[in-house]
């Protein structure tokens, strides 16, 4: 699978090192680089915009405070490991406010509508086409263990080895979860088309 992000001139590790040495613009570049994939993963995992924003901020605070200690080979894997640990802590402290099984709320607003940014103006909002909306709904209906693997691969562009290391699971388990997720998505989307 091709990476969604263009190949950076400076590696993530180099940017983090530059930040650790006092260059704050290096961190801005890192945040820019991972804004969309990380936020999308958090949004997909929490199904709540406010929670995803709080977690996104806390993930970067951790990166900022522990930048000097980074020794991992992959910054991406480290970032998602932090995000996942914070998500686990967050879940322990709070009860979910939205059931992921409910793809529409009491007022019949689809989940994707509720997750959309409210501060974006009408010109900034891009309407989802039908297919993208159906795919989103289907992704949000996946069981959590499958959804986190699926979104790590699709949004985070993590390799399966990185996913397995981040989740502390064997590679085959990660592949199995991805396989199951893909099977369900294909089945649901095919049913919708019929």
């Amino acid at each position: 699978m091709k990476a969604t992000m263009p190949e950076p001139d400076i590696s993530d590790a180099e940017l983090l090192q530059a930040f650790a040495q006092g260059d704050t613009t290096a961190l801005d570049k890192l945040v820019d680089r991972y804004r969309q994939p990380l936020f999308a993963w958090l949004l997909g995992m929490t199904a709540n915009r406010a929670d995803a924003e709080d977690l996104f901020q806390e993930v970067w605070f951790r990166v900022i405070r522990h930048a000097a200690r980074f020794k991992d080979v992959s910054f991406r894997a480290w970032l998602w490991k932090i995000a996942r640990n914070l998500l686990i802590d967050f879940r322990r402290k709070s009860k979910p406010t939205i059931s992921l099984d409910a793809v529409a709320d009491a007022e019949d607003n689809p989940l994707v509508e509720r997750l959309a940014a409210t501060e974006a103006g009408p010109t900034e909002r891009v309407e989802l086409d039908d297919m993208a909306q159906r795919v989103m709904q289907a992704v949000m209906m996946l069981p959590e263990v499958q959804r986190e693997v699926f979104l790590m691969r699709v949004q985070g562009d993590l390799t399966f080895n990185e996913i397995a290391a981040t989740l502390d699971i064997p590679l085959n388990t990660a592949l199995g979860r991805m396989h199951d997720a893909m099977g369900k998505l294909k089945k649901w989307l095919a049913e919708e088309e019929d």
Partner: protein
Amino acid sequence: MKTQTPFDEIAAIDRELLELAPRVRQGFECLGGPSTRVEQAIREEARRVAASRARPTWPLGRILAAAASLALLLGGTAFWFASQRAGQETQGLAQQPAAAAHIDESTASFASLLMEIQGLNEDGFFRTEEAESLWL
């Protein structure tokens, strides 16, 4: 039957994702990113941490070692001054009675000498028993 390796499985999954992944990404992109408030908070935290790292700070161990050295130096100096002063006072006290005794002694012997010259020294009249027997 050919055995499927994890490498084959990954390749197969990625082939299937080619169609699905762009739609998922498009969907999440339409939901927008984090608010500007969150991004501003991240930038401020980065600047705060970078500024605090730039300030020269002494590690706690070094501060404690410096404080201990200073305390030791001050304590040592105070002890040295105290012992010096005590020494001087002891010496002064010891010298005073000795000088007075010396004065007393010299005055008594001078008086005794004058009495002897004049033949008025009566010390000789009072002899001990041992001296008396020899004299007799």
